């Protein structure tokens, strides 16, 4: 039942906050891990069938409009997996018990799960806000100056996005008298291509608001600051799933299921996607901070997802969904790598690093898998999703496909630069005595690398499965 995706984290928060001395602090990590594992199991079970909220027995009045289909099941699975890795990273990289962080992580999971399952525009907004509020607090968690600054930037831009989204919902409500996905879709289909100005304005506002949330260029100002200033475990979660669910997923859901008849939106998304791909990649080349480079790389990779979505074809959507999942995994992997490097060397400044591959073989090896997958090198997972996206774009516009292909070379360039500066090249004296990271971090790196490899090597089966589920 969809409601479990919200009630289980809620139950976990209640359990952690029972008024028993030190219980919550001792159990926080365990309860967090169990919750994420349950979420992974539930989403795997849900992936096999479409779950609708039961209309009978427990007809819980609180959760009337929740539903899980294949698309949301994939996203729910991704949330569970990345949250699990994030918890492990926190446990292994931070000295504190993580009580507050884990509570907030469970709350943010509830928010993201809600976003994935609602079928109403206003409910979508409410759960999006849950995710956003929890994100601000998580970024500023340790109250360091840069964290507070990053959280503040995210907060301000997010507020602008919120205003746009609310205005768009108001316009849609004004015209249709309803906010349910199905009712809005039926209304738009009934217009037969002649849209009133309010509806067009609503599309524009939705696209702009969600572009801010997704961190697309030119609305990306908050992304590098938020990602690089957040605590390491939070960066993994933010880059892996939060931005994607609060922005990209909603764009995908709305433009596939609600606004699908509007061709104008597709063209806008293709342009936004291409600009993000190119600018993100170019900006990444100029970075010296490991996490900032990954943040700009995220902007570029999210551009590919949006590009696939913008084609409006089932193939483009399948590519976008696959890249959504793949990017969540390999970008989380790269952020775990950066955590390992920072833990062992005390710096993220790539100018002060070098030759770490021999000192940190697991981190160095898995980072190669992560970056090759990001650059779209076969047979890793990133190659296949980019291939599907580029084929779908090729059918719509050859020039756009060509630009996307060229940008892939840029991705390769900045990651080669990163590898040369951090892991290969001459060992700098400062890292002479550095050793490999601890077991937990290595475990997280290996888990995410394994998923990246398996998704790449077993891609034909993944494709067949998606075909069976009607995605392609």
């Amino acid at each position, binding site marked *: 039942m969809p409601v479990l995706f919200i009630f289980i984290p809620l139950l976990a928060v209640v359990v952690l906050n029972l008024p028993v001395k030190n219980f919550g602090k001792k159990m926080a990590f365990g309860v967090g891990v169990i919750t994420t594992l349950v979420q992974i199991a539930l989403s795997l079970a849900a992936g096999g069938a479409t779950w609708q909220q039961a209309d009978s027995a427990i007809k819980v009045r609180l959760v009337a409009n929740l539903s899980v289909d294949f698309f949301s099941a994939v996203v729910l699975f991704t949330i569970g997996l990345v949250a699990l890795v994030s918890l492990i990273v926190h446990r292994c990289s931070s000295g504190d018990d993580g009580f507050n962080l884990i509570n907030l992580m469970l709350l943010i999971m509830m928010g993201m799960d809600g976003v994935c399952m609602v079928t109403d525009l206003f409910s979508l907004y409410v759960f999006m806000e849950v995710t956003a509020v929890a994100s*601000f607090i998580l970024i500023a968690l340790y*109250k360091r100056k840069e964290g507070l600054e990053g959280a503040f930037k995210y907060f301000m831009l997010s507020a602008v996005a919120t205003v746009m989204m609310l205005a768009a919902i108001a316009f849609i409500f004004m015209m*249709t008298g*309803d906010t*349910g996905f*199905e009712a809005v879709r*039926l209304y738009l289909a009934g217009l037969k291509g002649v849209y009133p100005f309010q509806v067009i304005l609503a599309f524009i506002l939705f696209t702009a608001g969600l572009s801010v949330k997704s961190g697309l260029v030119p609305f990306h100002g908050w992304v590098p600051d938020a990602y690089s200033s957040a605590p390491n475990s939070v960066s993994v979660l933010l880059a892996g799933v939060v931005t994607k669910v609060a922005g990209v997923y909603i764009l995908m859901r709305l433009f596939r299921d609600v606004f699908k008849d509007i061709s104008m939106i597709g063209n806008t998304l293709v342009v936004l996607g291409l600009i993000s791909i190119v600018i993100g990649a170019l900006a990444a080349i100029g970075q010296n901070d490991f996490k900032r480079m990954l943040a700009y790389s995220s902007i570029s990779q999210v551009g590919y997802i949006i590009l696939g979505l913008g084609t409006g074809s089932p193939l483009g959507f399948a590519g976008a969904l696959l890249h959504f999942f793949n990017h969540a995994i390999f970008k989380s992997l790269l952020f775990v790598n950066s955590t390992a490097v920072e833990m062992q060397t005390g710096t993220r400044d790539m100018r002060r690093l070098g030759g770490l591959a021999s000192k940190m073989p697991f981190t160095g090896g898995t980072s190669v898998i992560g970056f090759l997958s990001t650059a779209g090198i076969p047979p890793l997972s990133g190659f296949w999703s980019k291939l599907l996206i580029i084929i779908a774009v090729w059918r719509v516009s050859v020039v756009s496909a060509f630009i996307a292909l060229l940008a892939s070379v840029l991705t390769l360039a900045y990651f080669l630069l990163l590898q040369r500066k951090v892991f290969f090249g001459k060992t700098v004296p400062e890292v002479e005595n550095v050793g490999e990271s601890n077991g937990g971090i290595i475990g997280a790196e290996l888990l995410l690398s394994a998923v990246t490899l398996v998704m790449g090597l077993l891609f034909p089966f993944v494709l067949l499965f998606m075909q069976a589920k009607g995605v392609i």
Partner: protein
Amino acid sequence: MNMTILTILLAFMVVSAALCVMVRNLLKAAIALALTSAILTVVMFMLDAPLAAVFELSVCAGLVTVVFVSAISMTKPHSREEIAAKVKERLKRFIYLPFILLALLVVMLVVLWPCMDFSQVMKAGGAGAKVQEVLWNNRQTDILGQIVIILTGVFGIVVLFKERETK
């Protein structure tokens, strides 16, 4: 007649909202915010939304103001010199903001407003649901979301402010 009163009320609301942002005294700002909510309450009553009006009056105009005033009473106000220095700095940094807002307003009124097609408003009727039903009866899921937001807010306060208190 009704429309005229509404327009006057909305104009007052904008003025009190602007006052709320512009006055230097926090207490006066809180009162201006309460006034904005109170005017909005009347507007909501006039627009046949009594439930929304009651919430607006009790929560936004009442409860929130009480919380703000109590919080302000616990703070130590800046000296006149400090305020003057801050105002000067802010003026330097944000002097262009009112012009941008004014330009936006002009664009909205001159360009966007004439394009609006109000003849089709709510003609579709959605899935047959009444507006009140959509706004009030179909919002069960949101209550759950709001519970989570409140929990998140509580954690936010605990995380970001607790340590400062102990110091």
